[in-house]
């Protein structure tokens, strides 16, 4: 039986020719990553073990969640992590305001830190985002991460694979966000539990990198261990621009799935049939096609996060805000996911569009996505958000209601004051 891309990458990182689903392996890690919530406990684990960082060039720490610090405890955590990074002279410590700063799942791809064939773990469930780069990336807890910071290795159960065979192309304004909400609605929040989600087929070529990153980002919302996109010309162009030195060195490896790779389940998706999707409270799997439900008034809109904080997302949102205004009684918070995205949005005039349309523009942060700060919801408030989770209490009060959607749907909803799409603006 042949191997999937995930299985080949894992085999290469444990020094084997082949692995099969269900096997337990110890794999070498190219990168380990943590944020300001999970990093401090991971550092304490490392200190309790009494070990030093295994490699100062392979540990990334990003104060993204409660930064800029939301309160004193968050500030103490951020300082603890910053001091650790300084003491050990870590190459990848990021500080807000710096050009390379942003939400961790934004900046690892954006700064060319992850390449095809890499294996990385992050103490954050959305680490699966990097699967868009044909790398194996998965989330772990702080203790696993602390141990990995000491050893540069971690143990894995080789996942069973699920194939998502894509044909056709998405019909604008439908985006990668709609596709992943569509998939999760189909298979459920445990539909890919413990499995790798392998995206294949001729439809992949039609997806730009920002869409692939959004899709891979939410693999965990279907229970997936990781997502995997093939390394094609679109990806190679992306990494070449972001890290020309590493690209020129050829310090990466492209793996292809075997024709007889072992997939436990296979889904065929014609991208042209995917509609604009909205996931109703309180599970990402409660997706409904826009236009199939009654008018739903809203209080707040959030556009940003590791799911949809890229420049492409900002451009789409700005398109609908141009010469329009946020509806009376609605607050709209726009959060470019990284400093580079913020700079680009400034240069393209998008920030101007947002501000004059009545939006608030926040510095890069995870902030409201996890009910941290910069837009926490009150009881009974209704929010349309481009983030990734609409669990009870996720964005604030447990009585608040969160609807997940694409940047296009979120922007149109902000303009109309109810859940709406581009067709409603005409």
């Amino acid at each position: 039986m042949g191997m999937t891309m995930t299985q080949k990458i894992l085999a290469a990182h444990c020094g084997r020719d082949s692995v099969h689903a269900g096997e337990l392996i110890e794999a070498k890690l190219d990168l380990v990553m943590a944020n300001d919530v999970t990093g401090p406990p991971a550092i304490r684990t490392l200190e309790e073990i009494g070990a030093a960082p295994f490699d100062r060039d392979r540990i990334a720490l990003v104060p993204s969640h409660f930064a800029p610090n939301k309160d004193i405890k968050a500030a103490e955590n951020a300082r603890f992590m910053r001091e650790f990074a300084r003491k050990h002279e870590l190459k990848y410590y990021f500080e807000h305001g710096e050009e390379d700063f942003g939400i961790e799942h934004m900046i690892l791809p954006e700064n060319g830190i992850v390449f095809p064939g890499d294996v990385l773990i992050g103490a954050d469930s959305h680490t699966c985002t990097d699967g868009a780069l044909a790398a194996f990336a998965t989330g772990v807890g702080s203790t696993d991460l602390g141990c990995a910071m000491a050893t540069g290795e971690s143990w894995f159960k080789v996942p069973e694979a699920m194939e998502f065979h894509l044909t056709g192309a998405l019909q604008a304004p439908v985006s990668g966000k709609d596709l992943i909400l569509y998939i999760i609605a189909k298979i459920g929040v445990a539909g890919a539990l413990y499995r790798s989600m392998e995206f294949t087929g001729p439809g992949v070529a039609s997806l730009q990198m920002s869409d692939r990153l959004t899709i891979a980002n939410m693999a965990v919302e279907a229970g997936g261990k990781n997502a995997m996109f093939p390394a094609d010309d679109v990806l190679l162009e992306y990494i070449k621009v972001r890290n020309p030195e590493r690209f020129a060195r050829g310090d990466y490896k492209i793996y292809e799935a075997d024709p007889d790779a072992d997939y436990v389940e296979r889904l065929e998706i014609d991208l042209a049939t995917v509609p604009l999707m909205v996931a109703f409270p309180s599970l990402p799997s409660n997706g409904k096609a826009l236009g199939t439900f009654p008018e739903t008034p809203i209080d707040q809109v959030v556009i940003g996060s590791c799911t949809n904080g890229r420049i492409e997302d900002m451009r789409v949102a700005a398109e609908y805000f141009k010469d329009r205004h946020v509806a009376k009684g609605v607050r709209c918070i726009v959060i470019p996911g990284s400093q580079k995205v913020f700079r680009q949005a400034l240069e393209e005039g998008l920030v101007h569009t947002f501000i004059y349309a009545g939006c608030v523009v926040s510095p890069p942060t995870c902030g409201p996505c996890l009910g941290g700060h910069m837009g926490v919801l009150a009881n009974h408030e209704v929010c349309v958000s481009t983030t990734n989770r609409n669990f009870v209490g996720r964005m604030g009060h447990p009585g608040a209601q969160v609807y997940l959607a694409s940047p296009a749907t979120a922007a149109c909803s902000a303009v109309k004051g109810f859940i709406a799409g581009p067709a409603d603006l005409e």
Partner: protein
Amino acid sequence: MNTQGKVFMYGDNVDTDVIIPARYLTTADPAELAKHCMEDLDKTYVDRVQKGDVIVAGENFGCGSSREHAPIAIKGSGAGCVIAPSFARIFYRNAINMGLPILECPEAVTGLAEGDEVEVDFDSGVIRNVNTGESWQAEPFPAFISKIIQSGGLVNYIRAKEGSAEA
């Protein structure tokens, strides 16, 4: 190793945001986190739970964020074990690393009800309703997982191993 206590029943897809909301994530202290365990799902849990009690829930328990604060909060609240048909994978790893016993057993989840007195033997994997005598078999932990849990988590396990190697 075992635990005995009352059953707290919950549904499918209990996520880490309801186990411990992000607004409390500025601390990793078990006692502090325990005060807010499950509060967005069941405000009465913290007041009712007693040492050794057992959380019995539906599929995909612990889905969502990778926060280790979730198993820390459950363990800190006094619960002795979580039983579910399946667990989200990051939570599964975190629970073991934190020394919180978890068992996959769909039959026990169907057979048990809120308030039942239950005994769970981690070495044999036997889950028993103390009042009716009915019992179910879960896959027991392999020896090394049992040792991690007995040690109180992965860090203590590694330190104990290194300590005994040095001695």
